[in-house]
């Protein structure tokens, strides 16, 4: 939608903002101010989806924001390298992110700073390793 328009306007505030093919990319440290601005000024008041992908040596965290009830949608992405996987939590901007981020932490092992209670949600607490990482090894139940 109008992601490139949003990108130019925000150019002067956040240098790290980029826009390739209608997706806003921003660095993790400027994430929260950008999110606040997107929510207040551009009334993206609804975080529909927050997920993450493991691209080998770096993680990419993807936020999809939309306007309720108009319905436009915007995708914002941040990149963080694999060792120190540390992303600020958008819990204070949209409280709905609490379970999204717990699931990402559980399945991919990305820590979210100042998240109210970052624990495993889907897997057993005694489960070691994060399944959705590309280098996750496990033995299936298929008797070959």
């Amino acid at each position: 939608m109008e992601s490139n328009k949003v990108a130019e306007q925000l150019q002067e505030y956040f240098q790290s903002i980029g826009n390739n093919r209608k997706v806003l990319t921003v660095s993790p440290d400027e994430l929260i101010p950008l999110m606040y601005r997107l929510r207040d000024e551009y009334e993206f008041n609804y975080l529909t989806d927050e997920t993450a992908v493991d691209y080998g040596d770096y993680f990419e965290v993807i936020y999809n924001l939309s306007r309720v009830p108009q319905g436009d949608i915007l995708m914002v992405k941040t990149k963080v390298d694999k060792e120190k996987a540390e992303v600020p939590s958008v819990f204070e901007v949209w409280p709905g992110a609490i379970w999204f981020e717990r699931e990402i932490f559980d399945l991919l092992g990305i820590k979210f700073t100042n998240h109210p209670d970052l624990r495993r949600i889907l897997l057993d607490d005694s489960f070691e390793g994060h399944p959705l990482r590309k280098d996750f090894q496990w033995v299936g139940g298929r008797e070959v």
Partner: protein
Amino acid sequence: MLRTEEFTLNMGPQHPATHGVLRLILHLDGETIVKVEPVVGYLHRGIEKLAEARTYTQVIPYTDRLDYLAAMLNNLGYVQAVEKLMGIEIPERAEYIRIIVSEMSRIASHCIAVGTYALDLGGFTGFMYPFREREKLMDMFEMISGSRMTHSYMRIGGVAADLPEEFYPAIKKFLKEFPSCVDEYDGLITGNEIFQARTKGVGVLSQEKAVQYSISGPTLRGSGVNYDLRKARPYGIYDRFDFEVPVGEKGDCFDRYYCRIQEMRQSHRIIEQALEQLEELPGGPVMAKVPKVLKPPKGEVYHEIEGAKGILGYYVVSDGTTKPYRVHIRRPSFINLDLLDEMCRGWKIADVVAILGSIDIVLGEVDC
């Protein structure tokens, strides 16, 4: 000094009212709830990891088993996401078949939602009547796709097969009887004073909190937010049909329940219009020209549809090979559940069951 202690009660993974294997740790002060702690993950089958080891078409049967009450809608979401990624145009006839079949699936899902809600509140007969209608829908699904619940009927680029001849008389008969059946539910469940006493004013969810906590579907519309993706951001050919979006006022359990009853009536209207327009269409193909082995271009897509429980989104990343690099599913039941804690505070145990029933979650979708 008389000191009353809080005690924790475990509405464990096996409980008649938790719609599957959800565990609620209730911190109680007598019968009133102090804190609710939902524990999920007892049905986590790792579908997102399995999808990474399957080809694009092989992922479709996994999407059936997510929200196993409305399997067609799950297929629709995934298939439209991949079509958007590959830029495929599907034939007109397939579009209409998809709309008819997914609205039927929505009615079947709401039938169960209404039925189990009456069962949770103790009305066993209110559970049986919607199941009778659902059996008729099951027969029609079996005619179309060969299976009652896990259809895997939609393919990337269209639908698996055209509608059989005996489907049309069956759907017409169903469409004639269905409104009187919904009025019957009204009489049996909605008009029941004890049902109203148990649901009116219970578990109120305000509009701002619902939007902040990214709640979606009848739960969001019950609080008065008019946000239905079929109207807000029409996908497929939903803009050719006219239907209203039922919206509640006070956001209590009754409004959420009543939104579902109204939505059944609206889906009934959509199917009627879609059937008329389908009959005028010349008999074209139902499957676009799609290569046997799908190799979508490198890239990613995020596509959302209005599922039976809420906004069902698919985020597919492809790296050019035949297997998706990453499939993430935005599951409405999973997100609608995180607000259960605030909504249940101060109410009784019986209300936790009522509120959980009104949010209408399916554990296959919560745990993915």
